[in-house]
């Protein structure tokens, strides 16, 4: 009796639901929930990852559960695409849950049991979103995901800002869900709402475009593409760190999954300008995200904006893939999509790692503002060194994982001149340049993040007794950091995995397109064209660094003396003299001034207690959102005129209605 991967995946999702149910039965049992249920959840995640790993290479498998609507029971299906995202979900969730086991504290936010309920409901609903195979099941699980994450975001709901963040989040999520629902409505033609029958529908280009745009809007609202990103920097910091990690690492990816599912699976043919649109949006998102994250002074907001940037990269890859696919250049489409999927995987790892690290810092110091941290590498070495891995990966530096996907993406760009459309050929170099710029900026951001939080002198006295992370937390961090390194040094093996995904979508995949690949070298087209071997790079780096070290040791026996810092001979050095977060962001603020809506309060030279205040806001909030709110407000003001309390007027309404209808029927 062998169990199919689909059955296993559903069973595991059910297991998460069960854990959630158990948790809510024991709302106050902190130790029980933290030390038993969360590790159990982690095990389930691990099992899910293994299942997905098995399923990804197997043919699709479907099943129907007798739930849902009578005419439309829940259909579930696992194919390579969903398996790939399930792999992300499972493996990341394992690490995050282990971390959360050590992270839960008494008296923080909601009762632990309730938190456990929403947390595992969130995990289960994400798994089911990826498995859903009909519109109804998809919408149900999708919205359940939104609701459960909303309750997690607002778990510490006594703070008004958090309430506001949660409201904004759920509202935009709901609007997006409405768009997705309309998208399915357009897609389904006249069949029923199973994806199987939607696939059969042949849409006219116009309706296909409508469906695509609705999907881009709906899923984009969840992914946080500009200008639908406003909820993300609010909601991510509000949530407890493991939740921010999951939201940023996995939930955003489910939106990407939705885009892929609709564009490459449910729709048969693509139109070239769809891709260009996505490309433009993606670029805007990437630049916007990175520029804003460079000027943040709250570490979780900084990471949230950097998530927006990475989503931008992913959407750019998606757009390239769509364009290539529309021109039937499937090999190149495979390259672009591979880059994008790879980046999904990478971002899931390094961003969750960094969010968890900030969580550990938060617990150790009770501080989120970068302006009050610093020098933690001495107090919490574990977190610091593991965070360094995450930071370097996020900065997209070799030989870690962030670099691989950026490398693939740039390779994909380098092939665009073969596109038939000359305008595109003009456009794409600029796009490539923008990508390069964003990548370089992300390095800037990460130096700021890491340097201000972990390096330098502690900016507050209380940081002196910050404690390092506990065992559970370390385990989670190590798991994710190991993921970052492995994904970085074994790209070829990962890509063979991704090939299973791109294959069914495009009819070809990278290996097929490029012929046999070498186990050591990542050569997407051929070795002459371009090749990269992170393993060799890391070995070379290690060897050379080691040799240098040995040589220095061998030949010169200079001693090492400790002394006060030199600092150009400046005698009275204190922590206040280091760059603040704002100071470090200043160049970006100057160079990219038009991006921001800044309000400065500069102290006058005669101030007894000089204060410097700077608020940086988002133009889009004022350009896109407030006008809509105003219009709705006007309309409501208009509508209320209907109800002014005079009974004669009310009678007049009925009378007029009657007369009008009588006129109509004559």
């Amino acid at each position, binding site marked *: 009796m062998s169990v199919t991967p689909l059955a296993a995946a559903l069973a595991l999702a059910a297991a998460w639901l069960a854990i959630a149910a158990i948790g809510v039965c024991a709302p106050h049992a902190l130790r029980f929930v933290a030390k038993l249920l969360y590790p159990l959840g982690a095990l389930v995640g691990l099992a899910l990852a293994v299942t997905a790993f098995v399923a990804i290479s197997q043919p699709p498998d479907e099943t129907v559960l007798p739930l849902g609507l009578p005419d439309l029971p829940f259909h579930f299906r696992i194919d390579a695409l969903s398996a790939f995202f399930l792999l992300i979900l499972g493996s990341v969730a394992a690490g995050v849950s282990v971390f959360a086991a050590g992270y839960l504290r008494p008296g923080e936010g909601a009762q632990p049991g309730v938190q456990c309920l929403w947390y595992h409901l969130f995990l289960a609903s994400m798994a089911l979103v990826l498995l859903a195979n009909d519109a109804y099941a998809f919408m149900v699980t999708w919205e359940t995901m939104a609701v459960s994450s909303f309750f997690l975001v607002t778990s510490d709901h006594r703070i008004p800002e958090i309430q506001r963040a949660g409201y904004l989040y759920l509202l935009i999520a709901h609007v997006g869900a409405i768009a997705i629902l309309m998208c399915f409505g357009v897609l389904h033609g006249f069949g029923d709402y199973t994806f199987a029958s939607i696939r059969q529908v042949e849409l006219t280009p116009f309706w296909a475009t409508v469906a695509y745009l609705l999907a881009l809007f709906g899923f984009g609202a969840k992914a946080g593409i500009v200008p639908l990103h406003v909820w993300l920097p609010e909601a991510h910091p509000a949530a407890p760190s493991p939740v921010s990690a999951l939201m940023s690492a996995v939930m955003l990816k489910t939106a990407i999954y939705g885009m892929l599912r609709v564009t490459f699976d449910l729709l048969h043919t693509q139109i070239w300008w769809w891709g260009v649109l996505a490309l433009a949006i993606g670029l805007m998102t990437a630049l916007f995200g990175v520029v804003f994250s460079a000027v943040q002074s709250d570490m979780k907001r900084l990471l949230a904006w950097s998530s927006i940037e990475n989503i931008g990269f992913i959407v750019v890859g998606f757009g390239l893939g769509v364009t290539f696919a529309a021109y039937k250049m499937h090999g190149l489409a495979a390259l672009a999509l591979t880059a994008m999927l790879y980046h999904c995987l990478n971002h899931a790892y390094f961003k969750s790692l960094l969010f968890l690290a900030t969580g550990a810092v938060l617990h150790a110091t009770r501080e989120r503002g970068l302006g009050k941290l610093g020098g933690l590498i001495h107090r919490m070495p574990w977190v610091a060194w593991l965070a360094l891995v995450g930071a370097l990966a996020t900065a997209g*530096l070799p030989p870690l994982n962030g670099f691989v996907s950026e490398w693939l993406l740039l390779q994909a760009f380098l092939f665009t001149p073969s596109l038939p459309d000359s305008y595109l050929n003009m456009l794409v170099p600029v796009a490539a340049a923008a990508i390069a710029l964003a990548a370089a900026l992300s390095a800037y951001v990460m130096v700021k993040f890491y340097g201000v939080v972990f390096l330098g002198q502690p900016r507050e006295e209380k940081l002196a007794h910050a404690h390092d992370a506990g065992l559970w937390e370390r385990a989670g961090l190590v798991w994710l950091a190991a993921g970052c390194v492995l994904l970085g040094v074994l790209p070829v093996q990962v890509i063979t995995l991704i090939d299973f995904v791109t294959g069914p979508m495009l009819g070809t995949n990278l290996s097929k397109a490029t012929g046999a690949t070498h186990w050591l070298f990542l050569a997407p087209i051929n070795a002459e064209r371009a090749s990269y071997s992170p393993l060799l790079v890391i070995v070379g780096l*290690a060897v050379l660094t080691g040799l240098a070290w040995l040589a220095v040791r061998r030949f010169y026996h200079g001693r090492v003396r400790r002394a006060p810092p030199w*600092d150009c001979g400046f005698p009275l050095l204190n922590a206040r003299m280091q760059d603040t977060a704002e100071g470090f962001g200043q160049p970006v603020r100057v*160079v990219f001034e038009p991006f921001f809506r800044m309000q400065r309060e500069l102290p006058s030279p005669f101030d007894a207690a000089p204060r410097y205040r700077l608020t940086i806001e988002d133009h889009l909030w004022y350009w896109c959102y407030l006008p809509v709110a105003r219009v709705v407000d006007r309309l409501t003001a208009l509508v209320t005129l209907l109800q002014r309390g005079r009974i004669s007027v009310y009678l007049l309404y009925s009378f007029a209605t009657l007369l009008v209808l009588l006129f109509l029927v004559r």
Partner: protein
Amino acid sequence: MLSEFSWAGASAQLTEILLAVLLAPLLLGWVNQCRAWLQNRSGPGVLRPYLTLRKLMAKDAVVAHGASPLFRTAPYIVFGCMVLAAAIVPTLGTDLPYAPAADAIALVGILALARVFISLAAMDIGTAFGTLGARREMMIGFLAEPALLIVLFTASLISQSTSLATTVETLSQRELAIYPSLAFAGVAFTMVSLAENARIPIDNPATHLELTMIHEAMVLEYSGRHLALIEWAASLKLFVYSCIGIALFFPFGIAQGGDAAGLLLALPALAFKLAIGGFLLALIETVSAKMRIFRAPEFLGTAFMLAVLALLIHALLET
């Protein structure tokens, strides 16, 4: 080309690395000497950098209180990165067994890695100058890095490859066609490398004035062998950039494949080109004035624009 391994290739690779490591300070010395001549000074002599390195190596290393292990490992990593970069760039021959490990993009990545580490190290002690230098360095970085990348893209679009060896082969073998894009790219590259190597007009290697310094501000806290490694790495960086420039824009004379005669011929050619390049660098530094740090973004922005322009021109005219 990926897997097969030849002793000739290996030896070529090794000679190249050794050559780079050993010649780099000389190049630096040569540039300083030329600058001295151009400024009517007698100059310290071309071997000065070697002496400096030796002196520093012999000295005690003074490490500030509150310096983390990161501070002490950074120099080694930076040095390693630079040597790695030197190993990838074809200087004498194009048959480098190690080159496939990293192409142009990876090269930029490795340089960025070095930059990130040195900036982090600069922030480690937590002095005013260190953070200032790190901030300015990263600013230069995020403006210069994409420009460099785009320059490399232009070349690799011409040669249909991002692996430097292949690029050099194509460029050196081509019949003498005019590539206007390469001209733009060349200007952009020059500006970028000026900035990246902390030369005038962006930075002045020979000053410790707070307002002007970038690279020096970062390494203020270093001393002894650490400082030596960093200085060496800096000269290596200069060497690497010059070699990239040569490889992209004047690749003639670089040995194709692994023929020994070619290598023997390539050595003097390289030396000659480096000498010229160093002199030109000195010339530029002499005739131009150090610009205020706030103007640096404009300077590098121009470089970036030129690079993109080069790419556009390539897409427009040369395909």
